[in-house]
């Protein structure tokens, strides 16, 4: 029997992206640069997170013509962002043929209580998380891939590190619990019980987990890989830097050779200025995108 858009092919595409870098792009020219540098996919956007942060206002799904223009020039998968809870934006992106939808806190949420029922779609979804409970709620809703939220558009990796360490230590804690403690753990973290059982048994999430939100250098990418993520999203970090082509190539190499400090030293040389970056404590609560999502 032939099955189109099954959970297996949704999670399977994420498996194929592992060990790779997914780059935010806003034009077909940037998309070509990303592909040429070795990106395993691109995220088609109207503005990168640091510009959304700077300009303020409501951030929405990109104009379909931007997404189509990017799909027309690259052969790698093209992802696009929909607002949290905005299932019509998601339907539009699915109709356009986007390969993955990021239900993203970078955009202004359209629903302050509910996320999209992602099981309803043939196109797979990726969602952000800050902890294990949030990751498992999103997977329960049908997300086929997870990423850390980090703090987008800051060029500051500290939040992505915190979110990854939190997820990993919560996974480790579950694997040590006797079975009678798992229901209460599920209740306390607000996660579906069957997924808590899966994590306790396997010691990992049932889907691929990438790092996102603040990665700006090859060393940042390698740090996240060493902390146990499966791959890297880079948002503003490439095209808001001094030499996007060199930086993009270096981050791709760092994601493959994350465990080889000699190679990392070599590829970290002469990359020009990284994006300038923001210290997290200077952001007010309303400026923190990671608080979006329920």
């Amino acid at each position: 029997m032939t099955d189109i858009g099954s959970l297996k092919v949704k999670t399977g595409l994420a498996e194929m992206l592992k060990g790779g870098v997914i780059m935010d792009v806003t034009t077909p020219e940037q998309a070509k640069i990303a592909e040429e540098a070795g990106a395993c996919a691109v995220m088609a956007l109207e503005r990168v997170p640091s510009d959304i942060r700077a300009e303020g206002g409501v951030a929405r799904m990109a104009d379909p013509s931007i997404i189509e223009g990017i799909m027309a020039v690259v052969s790698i998968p093209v992802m696009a962002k929909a607002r949290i809870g905005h299932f019509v934006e998601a339907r539009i992106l699915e109709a356009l043929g986007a390969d993955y939808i990021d239900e993203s806190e970078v955009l202004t949420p359209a629903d302050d209580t509910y996320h999209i029922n992602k099981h309803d779609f043939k196109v797979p979804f990726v969602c952000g998380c800050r902890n294990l409970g949030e990751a498992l709620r999103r997977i329960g809703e049908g997300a086929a891939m997870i990423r850390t939220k980090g703090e987008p558009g800051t060029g500051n990796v500290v939040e992505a590190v915190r979110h990854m360490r939190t997820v990993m230590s919560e996974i480790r804690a579950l694997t040590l619990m006797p079975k009678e403690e798992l229901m209460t753990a599920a209740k306390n973290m607000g996660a579906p019980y069957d997924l808590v059982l899966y994590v306790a048994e396997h010691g990992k999430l049932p889907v691929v987990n990438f790092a996102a939100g603040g990665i700006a250098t090859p060393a940042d990418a390698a740090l996240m890989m060493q902390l146990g993520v499966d791959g890297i999203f880079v948002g503003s970090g490439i095209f808001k830097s001094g030499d996007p082509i060199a930086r993009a190539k270096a981050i791709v190499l760092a994601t493959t050779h994350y465990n080889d400090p000699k190679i990392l030293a070599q590829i970290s040389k002469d990359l020009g200025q990284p994006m300038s970056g923001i210290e997290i404590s200077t952001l007010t609560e309303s400026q923190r995108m990671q608080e979006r999502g329920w």
Partner: protein
Amino acid sequence: MKKRVGVLALQGAFREHRQVLENLGCDVVEVRKSSDLKGIHGLIIPGGESTTIGKLLMIDEMGERIKDLGMKDLPIFGTCAGMILLSKTIIDSDQYRLNLMDTVVERNAFGRQVASFETDLLVPAMGPHLVRAVFIRAPYLREVAPNVGILSEFEGKIVFARQGNLLASAFHPELTQDLRVHQYFLDMINEHWA
């Protein structure tokens, strides 16, 4: 003798191949640089993005080293992106390739991700039981030379083929529990080193 099988680990689903090979009793080496190729009895090129893997193969001429091994009859199995990289001709693309199989491959040949599918495939070499095959933005072989054996077709499209020591599938046997496709490759390795 326990066989030592390399899995190209530059990008993509290399971990899944590793697990299947270990279940079949192989020693597995993750290949990230040319020196990792030393002493392997066979090599798997996994699914992933063929352009990304191709760029990373150009560094240190690792691709050329793999090509030499393939020409010297080392068993090599490419799945999905691996099928693309093994082919001599890639339609509408000048991307890097290993240039080993006399095949013409078309990328994303079944459509974008929303058209990705899984199905039951008849592979006569694996016996009468169908193989559950997962196709993700998959390629197929539009043409093959007479020296290439066709192992399976789906809706008239070649999705599994062998040319001597080289094996290529458009689908992902590493994503299912069925070990027969990897066992077939392991048999090729055992024959070669007998």
